[in-house]
């Protein structure tokens, strides 16, 4: 199924990005710069898909790319792929993977989503799963155009219950790194995932609940104390799961306060726009894994309830003036 490529190079790999929003687009556009890759994208937003097919997928900001990506809103039009990268918001995981499962009948699908619990859902539909954690971030600024706000690394490793092979994981990491998305293949990627999870769970919803930037949350003693208490619950659950964190979440949080003082957490941006948050996969994930191991997580439960209540309030109020 070789395709003619502009610069020669035999086609060696076909990959599909599932969920081509900000993060998915960063992966898709970078990968599409590699000659030997055929990059497909599945997304439900018609204008975005049409713009990608007409003009290529564009990235601005931290990277400048315009690359050919074959985008579809109908998964049946996408041929079988060796790899998938699932980048939807975590509340759409089930819907996205059940719609695209046929593409990956003999493929490995890597989650680069927020929170925990996504790999478990993916594993119900495809033979091999890769656990991933990524830091690059951006925004869809127009159909077919994504601004890359933050660069950063990605870590991938096997999902223990339905693992992809080490060779597959190496191959994906190599391609991603060569495309400009620095990625490390690990034998155990849980530490990276839980470090980011605990960081997010302790800081992100507090931004949404208080309206404070990351830096202010950290400099006010009441919120810094609460962040610390939330971190302790998350670390206790990770310990009970036998996961070794790859760094201290408290140190990461303090570091972020220095380098990203004015950053508004994504959940605060969601709150300002009255968009549904990923609270279920983030703090909710800590609560569910804690319950599974008998570790109490009352503060994370309280945060889940408060954010759920906030979302409930939006359903009966008009959204505010847009940002």
């Amino acid at each position: 199924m070789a395709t003619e490529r502009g610069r020669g190079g035999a086609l060696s790999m076909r990959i599909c990005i599932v969920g081509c929003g900000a993060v998915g687009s960063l992966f898709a556009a970078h990968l599409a710069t590699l000659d030997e890759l055929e990059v497909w994208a599945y997304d439900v937003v018609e204008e975005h898909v049409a713009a990608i097919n007409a003009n290529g997928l564009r990235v601005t900001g931290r990277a400048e790319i315009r690359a050919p990506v074959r985008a579809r809103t109908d998964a049946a039009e996408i041929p079988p792929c060796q790899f998938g990268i699932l980048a939807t918001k975590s509340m759409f995981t089930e819907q996205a993977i059940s719609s695209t499962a046929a593409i990956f009948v003999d493929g490995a699908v890597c989650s680069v989503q927020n929170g925990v619990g996504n790999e478990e859902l993916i594993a119900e539909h495809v033979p091999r799963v890769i656990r991933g954690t990524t830091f690059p971030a951006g925004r869809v600024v127009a159909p077919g155009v994504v601004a890359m706000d933050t660069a950063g690394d990605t870590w991938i490793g096997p999902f223990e219950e339905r693992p992809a092979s080490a060779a597959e994981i190496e191959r994906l990491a190599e391609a991603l790194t060569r495309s400009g998305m620095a990625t490390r293949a690990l034998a155990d990627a849980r530490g990276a995932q839980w470090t980011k999870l605990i960081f997010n769970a302790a800081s992100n919803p507090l931004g949404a609940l208080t309206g404070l930037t990351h830096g202010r949350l950290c400099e006010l003693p009441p919120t810094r104390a609460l962040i610390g208490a939330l971190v302790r619950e998350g670390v206790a659950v990770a310990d009970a799961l036998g996961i070794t964190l790859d760094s201290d979440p408290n140190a990461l949080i303090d570091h972020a306060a220095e380098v990203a003082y004015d950053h508004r957490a994504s959940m605060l941006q969601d709150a300002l726009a009255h968009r549904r948050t990923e609270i279920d996969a983030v703090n909710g994930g800590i609560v569910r894994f804690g319950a599974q191991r008998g570790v109490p997580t009352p503060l994370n439960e309280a945060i889940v309830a408060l954010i759920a209540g906030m979302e409930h309030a939006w359903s009966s109020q008009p959204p505010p003036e847009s940002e």
Partner: protein
Amino acid sequence: MAISRVCVIGAGTIGSLFAGHLASVCEVSVLTRRSEHAALLREQGLRISGKHERHATVFATDDAVALPPFDVGIVACKALDLEPTAAALAGHGEGATLMTVQNGLGAEAVLARHGAWPLISAVTFMSGIRHSDAHVEYELDTATWMGPWAQTATPYAVVEELAALMIAAGLEAEAMEDLLPAQWSKLIFNSAINTVAALTGLPHVAAFAAEREFGDLGWLVHALIDEGVAVAAAAGVELHEDPWEMNVLAVARGETAHSDYAHRPSMLEDILARRATEIEFITGALVREGARVGVPVPLSSAMYRLVRAREASWLPSAAGAVL
């Protein structure tokens, strides 16, 4: 003692409801904070609508020196304004008994520092909607509970007489020999309901009592109430009413999750108007009592910290003001 002259100190929503009703059975004077408020009351009188229709003639002034003599003073300012209000009253109301109706704990002690008046403690459950300086709608026609403050040996007969006067005026009132059990019931109820409403943006709707699903708010409200009940028990206070039952009853009063007329707790009103809240007097008091009697209150403490942080989000800050 025959009570024939009542002075209402602080003509916000609650103070106006007292003044507007009591004027039908006795002479009422009103001490306001703003002179234009007093002028409007003198000119137009005070209108009550909603559950009752009243149009009261009251004497109003913003200067304590100008107040006519009174038998009972009802101090109905916000807890945050109590200190300056008590200072302004010092030297006035000789021979009068004063009643506090502030939310939370500690109002009586503030008044006692400024004068030797016999004091009545009260908690009120009535609520209203303030349409203007001279017009308040009587919303919830629920009771005011009152009892002698033990430290000033106020005769119980005075409390009974004032309660009878309020009932004659059309209000719901109940005299109690010991108000602490009722005061604590309301404190615990208030702390849970006000903080959850303030942080989620929800009025006091059915979700506050729903405990069926993960993320329902009832779990959190119940857990907060349980912390308060444990503090009361350790402090030796036997509660007058079960605060959880109070919550269940309040949301069952014909209100639905999306009803427009569900009650907005005052802390939510303050948050929406970006005013300082009464968090210190309510949840702050509960957290301090918890520390005093050695009962851990991690969830109440988290709510306290979040509301304080929310207040900080609209206060000016050198570098991080947001929203």
